[in-house]
């Protein structure tokens, strides 16, 4: 049971709110002005103060100074009906200060008093555990990843995320930002999407008139991510001649806008990401060595989905659940379907799985609750990847031969004579091989 002080000049609101708070099992005292609130806090200790921002004799902020002298300091939840005040309050919020925006629901009060974040809405409640509010997966490799996120989030170290396309690098950047409790925002930019001419302006900002078309001053992403996190996606696609400028900012923690002369101090964690393999970063000369060591203070390898296949049913269920909630439907996977999803190697990783679930959801018969999976999961990109990476060290000759026969048959729509021609073997030999591999039989 908590001792709660409710400070608001709207008496109708305090009447109802105190009723609700008492229903929730807490003691409530009510003050309708700053003066009354000050009297209350002198006369007795409170665990939590629900404080209106605008009071007849001043701002609720004035009470904060008085509260700082108390030990133990109560938790404070500001209540405001003014959206403009919301932004300002979010800046002063800390471990003991929070805010609520009217209209308020019981859940808001409950979560404020319990100091737990409120679930977004009842309809959005999910049975899936999202680590750091956004990551799904219970495999060992994901738990190792969570540990790394937790450790690095508590430091200011720059992080480099490495992993194949579609593994969720930006989601992990969000998780690190979330876990760090940084006051500033997460600002994301894609270095591969910017032209050589624009990248300087995007990263460091520009002054008015710096170049043709620079009609006004612009803050760069380093400035926008002040006290927060800057996510540089596809950092290895940044032109080499821009990299010394980036290095200078990383080392000096100061930016100079394009066309400007003034050095502006910046303070943000840089999370960069690349889908290139670590060894190719050096061999392909896509990133300067000095920049690599600045960016990859803490490198994190994100496992591809095929290396955490045990998470596939969980992810497929979670994606389907999201679609069910959005569309008020009740589709479900059968065990056989989940097993089929688990058996595929998902070269496009989580992004490809999500796409496949969405496609299956759209294709499914609304009269039934069963999702219809396509006959083949392969996308044009997965075929290209397969074709390019069909041979790797560790594979047996038998595996390679089997794979070659499979993709040849796919190429010729299952025509065995054409496939045998293409493979340079007789049709009889192809049949013998197919018989031996059994798997290809319909």
């Amino acid at each position: 049971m908590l001792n709660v002080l409710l400070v608001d000049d709207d008496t109708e609101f305090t009447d109802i709110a105190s009723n609700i708070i008492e229903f929730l099992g807490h003691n409530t005292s009510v003050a309708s002005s700053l003066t009354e609130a000050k009297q209350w806090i002198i006369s007795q200790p409170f665990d939590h103060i629900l404080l209106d921002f605008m009071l007849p004799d001043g701002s609720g902020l004035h009470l904060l100074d008085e509260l700082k002298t108390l030990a133990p300091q109560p938790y404070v939840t500001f209540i405001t009906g003014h959206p403009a005040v919301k932004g300002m309050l979010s800046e002063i919020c800390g471990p003991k200060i929070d805010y609520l925006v009217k209209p308020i629901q019981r859940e808001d009060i409950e979560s404020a008093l319990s100091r737990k974040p409120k679930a977004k809405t009842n309809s959005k409640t999910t049975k899936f555990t999202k680590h750091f509010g956004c990551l799904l997966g219970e495999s060992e490799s994901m738990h190792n990843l969570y540990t790394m996120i937790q450790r690095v989030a508590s430091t200011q170290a720059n992080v480099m995320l490495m992993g194949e396309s579609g593994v969720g690098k930006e989601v992990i950047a969000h998780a690190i930002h979330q876990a760090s409790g940084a006051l500033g925002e997460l600002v994301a930019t894609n270095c591969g999407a910017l032209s050589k001419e624009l990248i300087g302006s995007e990263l460091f900002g520009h002054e008015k008139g710096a170049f043709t078309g620079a009609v006004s001053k612009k803050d760069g992403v380093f400035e926008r991510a002040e006290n927060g996190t800057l996510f540089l996606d596809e950092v290895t696609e940044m032109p080499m001649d821009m990299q010394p400028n980036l290095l200078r900012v990383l080392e000096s923690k100061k930016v100079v806008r394009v066309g400007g002369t003034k050095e502006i101090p910046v303070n943000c964690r840089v999370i960069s990401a690349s889908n290139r393999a670590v060894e190719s970063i050096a061999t392909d000369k896509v990133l300067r060595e000095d920049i690599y060591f600045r960016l990859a203070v803490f490198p994190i390898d994100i496992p591809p989905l095929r290396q955490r296949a045990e998470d596939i049913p969980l992810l497929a269920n979670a994606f389907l659940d999201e679609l069910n909630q959005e569309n008020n439907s009740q589709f479900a996977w059968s065990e056989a379907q989940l097993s089929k999803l688990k058996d595929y190697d998902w070269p496009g990783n989580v992004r490809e799985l999500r796409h496949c679930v969405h496609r299956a959801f759209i294709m499914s018969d609304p009269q039934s609750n069963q999702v219809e999976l396509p006959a083949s999961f392969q996308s044009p990109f997965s075929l290209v990847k397969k074709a390019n990476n069909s041979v790797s060290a560790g594979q047996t000759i038998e595996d390679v031969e089997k794979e070659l026969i499979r993709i040849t048959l796919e190429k010729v729509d299952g025509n065995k004579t054409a496939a045998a021609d293409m493979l340079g073997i007789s049709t009889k030999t192809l049949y013998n091989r197919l018989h031996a591999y059994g798997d290809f039989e319909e």
Partner: protein
Amino acid sequence: MSIDKTTALAKQIHNARGPLNRISMNAELIKLIIENDMPKDKALVALDKIISACQECSDSLQNISEQKYE
């Protein structure tokens, strides 16, 4: 829209949020009363407050719409 008009509109929206908040809170109170099998008198009082707040909110919105197009 001029800064003055924007400020006036923001203030009116703020005023409309007051009764909306009371509607929300009274509805929560009614839910609690029903969930806890409490006497229904309190729920009826809360329902009357909701009806009155709806009217107040409607008046505020009417003011906003009239002033916006002046």
